């Protein structure tokens, strides 16, 4: 009731107009206010313009090579014009898939432990701290760590898609843990208590009630995790290396990926530099399209959990 009262327009007494006129801000205060508003608009422009310019550059310079050959050919034996990024696209799908297979179960299980089992015990505190630290690992350091791990096991200098997937998993696991934990916390406690009160064991409650309820949010988190690692270049440049040919074997030898393809098309050009630049931009256009699709997919999911909360 009070809320509606305060929202009403003030009842103007006869002298209210005079009071209002007297309280109109001075010229300099209005000027400052206007300058601040202009600065805010400028800040929005400063954010939107680079994004627009990057997208425009990729479309303008990349569309020249957005042909069928690009998606049906690798760079094997190609010098100058022609060639494609099939090997890099395949490599990205394989490595990102492997990363997801490592990171999602592990990250989700850790998040379930943190929200459903741990309470406030010591292991939970350590795990949370570890996740905090892992989020701040620069991606190139994850690449170095994966390289160090694989050279301890397989000898120095090895490159493989699997090492790339392990490096990316170091980046993706903390992302999955954080987003899953956040979503699991949104599942209302009375749903769990209802299940437990009916005598279901905790694991059954999690499997039949908590996880299905949280599924859209968990999926969105996983998709955002994939979007986060699919554009990573530096770690893959170190440990997955680069090749011009197809390689379907995660465990054996260098595997090209889309971001590294873009980088190498620029960094090691042949004589016909325009052909290499066009391929780099075409690769950038494809990679951005993939990332945008993943973002939109993740964006389409969470409202379901919002709705679910409103229905409770």
């Amino acid at each position, binding site marked *: 009731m009070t809320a509606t009262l305060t929202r009403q327009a003030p009842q103007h007494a006869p002298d209210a107009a005079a009071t209002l006129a007297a*309280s109109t*801000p001075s010229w300099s205060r209005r000027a*400052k*206010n206007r*300058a601040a508003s202009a*600065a*805010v608009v400028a*800040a929005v422009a400063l*954010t939107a313009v*680079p*994004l627009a*310019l*990057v997208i425009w*550059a*990729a479309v303008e*310079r990349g569309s020249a090579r957005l042909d069928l050959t690009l998606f049906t050919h690798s760079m094997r034996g190609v010098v100058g014009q022609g060639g494609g990024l099939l090997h890099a696209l395949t490599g990205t799908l394989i490595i990102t898939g492997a990363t997801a297979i490592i990171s999602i179960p592990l*990250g989700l*299980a*850790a998040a*379930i432990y943190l929200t459903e089992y*741990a309470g406030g015990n010591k*292991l*939970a505190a350590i*795990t949370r701290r*570890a996740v905090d*630290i892992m*989020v*701040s*690992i*620069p*991606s*190139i*350091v994850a690449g*170095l*760590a994966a*390289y*160090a791990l694989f*050279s*301890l096991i397989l000898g*120095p200098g090895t490159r493989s898609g699997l090492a790339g997937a392990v490096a990316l998993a170091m980046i993706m*696991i*903390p992302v999955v*843990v954080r987003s899953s934990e956040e979503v699991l916390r949104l599942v209302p406690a009375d749903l769990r208590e209802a299940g437990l009160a009916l005598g279901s064991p905790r694991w059954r409650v999690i499997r039949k009630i908590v996880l299905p309820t949280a599924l859209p949010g968990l999926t969105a988190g996983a998709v955002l995790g994939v*979007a986060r690692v*699919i*554009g*990573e*270049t*530096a770690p893959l*440049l*170190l440990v997955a290396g680069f090749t011009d040919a197809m390689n379907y074997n995660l465990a054996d030898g260098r595997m090209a990926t889309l*971001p590294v393809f873009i*980088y190498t098309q620029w960094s090691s050009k042949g004589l016909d530099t325009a052909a290499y*630049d066009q391929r*780099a931009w075409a690769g*950038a256009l494809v*990679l*951005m399209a993939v*990332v945008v699709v993943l973002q939109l997919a993740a*964006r389409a999911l969470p409202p379901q959990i919002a709705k679910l909360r409103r229905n409770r």
Partner: protein
Amino acid sequence: MMAAASAVALVLVGVLVFLAVNGGPAVTAGEGELPAHAKNFLALAGPLAFGSLWVAVIALALASLPAVGVALAATIYAPSPRFGRFLGAVLDLLAAVPSVVFGLWGLMVLAPAVVPGYEWAHAHLGWLPFFSGEPSVTGRTVLTAGMVVAVMILPIMAAICRESFALTPPALIEAAYALGATRWEMVRAAVLPVARSGIVAGGMLGLGRALGETMAVAMVLSATPSLISFNVISAENPSTIAAFIASTFPESTGAEVSALIGLGLVLFAISLVVSLVGRRIAKQGGLR
């Protein structure tokens, strides 16, 4: 489940152990064993650490005001909640653009475009140490790299500022307006003081991100790894730890690789300190 949680913590321990085992020997390595003809590890790591911090600070300086501005636009100044959401989507998209694409853009589009600006800055502001000396003709300088990194860290900084602006108690906002404040005076009196720790935390996390930024810097910067210089428009630029690792690693072997891993450990330590401080400040401000 318990095993999974322990495994996550163990992954971190593993990262540190693998890096230390492989990178440790580099600390005592002498002349001839290190990349870039460095005399010892310190002579290698020092200038690169300077470069990392220098590029990151430039990026932070360029990004902080726009980040606060965009966050204000998405919360206080937004004409409708829909506009706020739209701006959020723009920021998410900007955050999602892969760094290699930003590198390509910075190198081929931005760098040539800023050269006239650098020439002007040299002619008129040449008395400042930042703009002294011949400007680069390619535009591939520390300042250009800083601009690209600024665009890349803007979304995370804006996201945290936005979160803390949204926490301003509505009563404070109404009170400021009731006292006759203009919108800007309300922001200064009610929004910014409450969000101060959020703004600082956003800056620290942005700085941490900027320190680890690799590909964009490696591609944009035309670097001399042993150089320490505050000049931001010259053709001779310091390199950064991350960019140096990325551009040197593919051709390195043996002791050089271990030196690069040692550099990675240094970078990890620097960005860890920065982001832990940032997170602590964020928690004090009541953010996640």
